């Protein structure tokens, strides 16, 4: 495969930016949701759970469309965000990041929830008797013990955002240099007869990107795994 063209570099860098911002931005709320779902019982829990799963269940185009309805510049919420904070999403790379974040959310929540459910609560109570309040217990015990899940969430979420198409194109449009991420470029290429080579190149770039993410995550997992060892008594 010959070297990337400047256009392809641009698309790749934009995709990386969008995915990275999406994943890092959605990580804290996703963890909070995972924690709520894993640890708390409250009325409406199943409703919250469904809401989290929604972007998975609906076709992405519908999700994009709902985002457009909710956050379009002519809609109340969108107008408010714009006038109060100067935030616009529509037609901006931030919109692409938001769409990617929303689509990645359910995967990330599930992965982290699964890990949190596996954390031995007895270790948390041990931390409490040693003088750690709720927050320190969380930061020093709960979070590191669910590091596996956080890492899995990052990988899954990143891969999902790198591949996100339907919601992005519907909500943020397909503007070269602003919102045209890899899948959108691939889609454009797919529409043209005989552009299979270009599709293959762009798909190759996507795969390379997420392979890199995987390698990094495996390396991190190995490091923390070595550190961790297994439960004792």
């Amino acid at each position, binding site marked *: 495969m010959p070297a990337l063209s400047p256009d392809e570099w641009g698309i790749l860098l934009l995709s990386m930016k969008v995915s990275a911002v999406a994943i890092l931005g959605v990580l804290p709320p996703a963890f909070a949701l995972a924690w709520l779902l894993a640890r708390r019982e409250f009325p409406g829990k199943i409703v919250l759970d469904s809401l989290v799963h929604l972007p998975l269940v609906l076709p992405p185009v519908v999700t994009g469309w709902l985002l*457009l309805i909710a956050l379009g*510049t*002519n*809609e109340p919420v969108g107008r408010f965000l714009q006038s109060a904070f100067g935030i616009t999403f529509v037609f901006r790379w931030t919109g692409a990041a938001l769409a990617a974040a929303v689509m990645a959310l359910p995967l990330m929540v599930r992965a982290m929830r699964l890990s949190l459910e596996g954390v031995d609560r007895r270790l948390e109570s041990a931390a409490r008797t040693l003088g750690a309040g709720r927050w320190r217990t969380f930061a020093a015990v709960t979070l590191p013990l669910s590091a596996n899940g956080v890492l899995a969430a990052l990988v899954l979420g990143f891969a999902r955002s790198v591949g996100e198409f339907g919601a992005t*194109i*519907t909500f943020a*449009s397909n503007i070269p240099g602003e919102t045209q991420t890899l899948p959108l470029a691939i889609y*454009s290429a797919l529409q*043209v*007869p005989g552009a299979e080579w270009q599709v293959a190149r762009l798909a190759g770039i996507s795969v390379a990107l997420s392979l890199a993410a995987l390698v990094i995550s495996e390396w991190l997992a190995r490091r923390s795994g070595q550190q961790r060892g297994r439960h004792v008594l």
Partner: protein
Amino acid sequence: QPTRTAPLVLAAASLQESMNAAADGWARKGHPRPRISFAASSALARQIEAGAPADVFVSADEQWMDEMQKKSLLRPRTRVSFLRNALVLVAPKASSTRLTIAKGMPLAKALGPNGRLAVADTSAVPAGIYAKQSLTALGAWSQVQSRLAPGESVRAALAMVSRGAAPLGIVYATDAKADPGVRIIGTFPERSHQPITYPVALIASSRNPEAEGFRRYLISAEGKAVFRGFGFGTR
């Protein structure tokens, strides 16, 4: 069992309503109602290439039909371009924008300071390609090239306008006509773009005896009348 003998029609997604109406018309004449799969022309063409057992292909542009023909996937002498469409400039219903579509029109100004022009992808989707041709012919392409909001399909562009996310958009006349949320500002001159035509053809591997009958119905006066009802031109 009628489904056995009903032909399978692959039709461009933008023909959703009209083609269903045509199939109903055909069924009313005592034939099994064709089964229709609506998707992007590109997707359908690739399925035909992969050997999908379909009978009739109705594409939203000539490009993919050419491709199929080149690969001998069409029954010879069954290809007919039977529908025409026009390209229009639309604005949200409530918008008061006025603009006469002509050479040198101030399109960028009409978009306002931040507005974007909703179109279908101008490098790939037929409606977008036509829009680019027209804008180029009218000398407006360089004004708006950086102000586009390309959607995944004409429908996406239409939705952006009718939701007010974009102040203007370029879509097919048939779409604009059907959407109460938008107002047609003007029609692009027919000569500013390649003819917008919809070809139909039989697929080479088709064994269904009903298929040819349905194709003939589509291109008959009766069939064309159905499509005219949805705003298509016929030829």
